[in-house]
């Protein structure tokens, strides 16, 4: 067990490319931390720095309280699951699992016990004599996981381990990895570009963009209090609606509608000079059809364009004051195309951003 600390980590390629830019992050002992972000944001690079497969350009990396910048991968006590699995094709599943243990000169009986245990946990007993070529994608994926767990390392590193699986298997394996983590309690850094995976698996999520850390926090913190427009738009599915408004005292002018604010939201609006542009954000699932007077919600009119029926819910695409707005509503609302409706967003679900700095103005 160990913590992993990124202390002002930089990774540069040549002069121009900064793949990881001043990353500061502490992964707690036993934590499941998900690194998430769009393609090319430096997740893999950050993970490979921890593995020791990439030289760190600047900063200190600690595993436990040991600085490991110059420690070889084999001496870092880590195990990694690669996106392509990277199973040894010339070895049987058994030997794939046993390889790391043999290199550590563990005795035969202990190796056998660990391999059998690991295979048992992952349901691989039947395949121990097979070569990787004779396995399905999902089975290979489990061998890759097995190879990591039998080593009993202090940190697991996983780079998009589910991206080669089909949708159903991905959900299953997601649960399997979560269960494995509960059982073993090993510190894990998990890379994905899929925010659903991040939300469902992570104790904490670290959102990155262009090599820069955007926000770290529990899934709920990220969902409820995104610090900037990028995180707000990245976390949550379908993603958050954004619209431009103008500040007027402690209210906001949204096209022809006036959003009357209270509490933290009102203070945020007040902090901007009158007439200044302010970006508001609200999630599709927080939108309701307004009924009667309710002081704790902002409301605005909208015209429905498209209705996507999803079963118990409907995805409503509507035009509100010149902005496209997506709302997720229970199907029994019976909204039809072309309807004019009043939409309401609960006050505390309204996010307010500074369009220049892109940072949140609330909180």
């Amino acid at each position, binding site marked *: 067990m160990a913590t992993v600390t990124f202390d002002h980590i930089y990774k540069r390629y040549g002069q121009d490319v900064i793949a990881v830019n001043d990353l500061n992050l502490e992964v707690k002992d036993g934590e499941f931390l998900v690194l998430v972000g769009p393609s090319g944001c430096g997740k893999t690079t950050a993970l490979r720095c921890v593995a020791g497969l990439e030289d760190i350009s600047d900063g200190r990396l600690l595993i436990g309280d040991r600085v490991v910048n110059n420690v070889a991968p084999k001496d870092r006590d880590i195990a990694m699951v690669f996106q392509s699995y990277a199973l*040894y094709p010339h070895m049987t599943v058994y030997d794939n699992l046993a390889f790391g243990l043999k290199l550590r000169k563990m005795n035969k009986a202990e190796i056998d016990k660990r391999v059998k245990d690991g295979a048992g946990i992952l349901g691989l007993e039947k395949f121990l004599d097979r070569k990787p070529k004779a396995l399905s994608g999902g089975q290979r994926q489990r061998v890759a996981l097995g190879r990591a767990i039998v080593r009993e390392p202090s940190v697991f590193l996983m780079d998009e381990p589910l991206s080669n699986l089909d949708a159903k298997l991905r959900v299953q394996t997601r649960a399997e990895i979560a269960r494995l983590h509960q059982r073993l309690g090993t510190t894990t850094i998990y890379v994905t570009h899929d925010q659903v995976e991040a939300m469902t698996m992570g104790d904490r999520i670290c959102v990155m963009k262009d090599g820069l850390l955007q926000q770290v926090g529990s899934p709920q913190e990220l969902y409820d209090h995104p610090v900037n427009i990028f995180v707000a738009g990245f976390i949550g599915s379908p993603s958050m609606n954004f619209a431009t408004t103008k500040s007027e005292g402690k209210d906001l002018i949204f096209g022809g509608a006036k959003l009357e604010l209270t509490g933290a939201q009102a203070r945020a609006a007040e902090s901007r000079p009158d007439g200044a542009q302010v970006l508001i954000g609200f999630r599709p699932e927080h939108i309701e059809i307004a009924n009667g007077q309710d002081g704790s919600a902002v409301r605005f009119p909208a015209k429905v364009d498209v209705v996507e029926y999803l079963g118990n819910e409907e995805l409503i695409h509507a035009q509100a004051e010149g902005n496209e707005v997506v709302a997720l509503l229970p199907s029994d609302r019976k909204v039809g195309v072309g309807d004019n409706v009043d939409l309401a967003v609960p006050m505390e679900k309204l996010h307010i951003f500074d369009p220049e700095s892109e940072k949140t103005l609330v909180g």
Partner: protein
Amino acid sequence: MDFGTLGFAVLAIVGVPAVTVLYILATEWLVRGLPERRRATIRPWLWLLPAFAFLGVYLIYPMIQTAILSVMDRRSESFVGFDNYLGLFGNDSFWLTIANTAMWLVLFTGIVIVIGLIVAVLTDRVRYETGVKALIFIPMAISFVAAGVIWGFMYEFDPDIGTLNAGLATVGAEPQSWLTEWPRNTVMLIIVGIWMWVGFAMVILSAGLKGISTELLEAARIDGATELQVFFRIILPLLAPTIAVVGTTIVITALKTFDIVFVMTSGNFDTEVIASLFYRARFINGDVGSASAVAVILLLAIIPVMLINIRRFQQQEAMR
């Protein structure tokens, strides 16, 4: 070009495809009467027939002919039984030839593969990879004769000409006669062969190396392997099929070695190998019987290599 040659060229260009088409039509006409299922089994054999016929004429027949000549006298006039073979076996210089060829087989093959492998693995990790590889591959493009001449200068006795002896002179050592003392001279010839063939081994092995994914090596490193363990436990086993291909090619080259020996020593000073022995017997001594016996021995030596190769080929087919 006179008219006859032209006519022959036209005949070749038009005639060969025409004969091929006619042959296919003829086989179709032949199998026409058979039920569809039988046709499918018989057709491939009919199509293979011409290839087998050519093989028979150009390979099997000469082989048999050589075997027959090897039990005839030097003018191929009368049957002498195994006298040619017994003559060879009773001759010390024959056994020396076998010993030299064995040296070629072991040293040449072994060192070419090992150096080729080392260079391939090392150049895989440097930035100026292509430059280094080109440099090492260049000797492959030089003819054996030219290589023999170049290395002839290297091995020259006179320190003013011979690079090796010049080197010895700078450290105050006596100049050596590199090509007259056995077994040193054969080793020196083998070095020339190695210089020429390492490039080939390197290029093929390095292509094989590129086929091994870096993630695999990284996985092994994380699993706790040192660079040497990565090499011996991951790279080497995965490269085994490629090494086998290079190995067979080099073994056959070693068995057929002729040019280097012929150019540099003409087989004198006990540097004779099987192929140069054959040349001497056939074209210098004019002894067709003995020469054929040597050829048969060379053939027999190559058969096990061929068998190993065929077996490996079948295994690979089975793996796909």
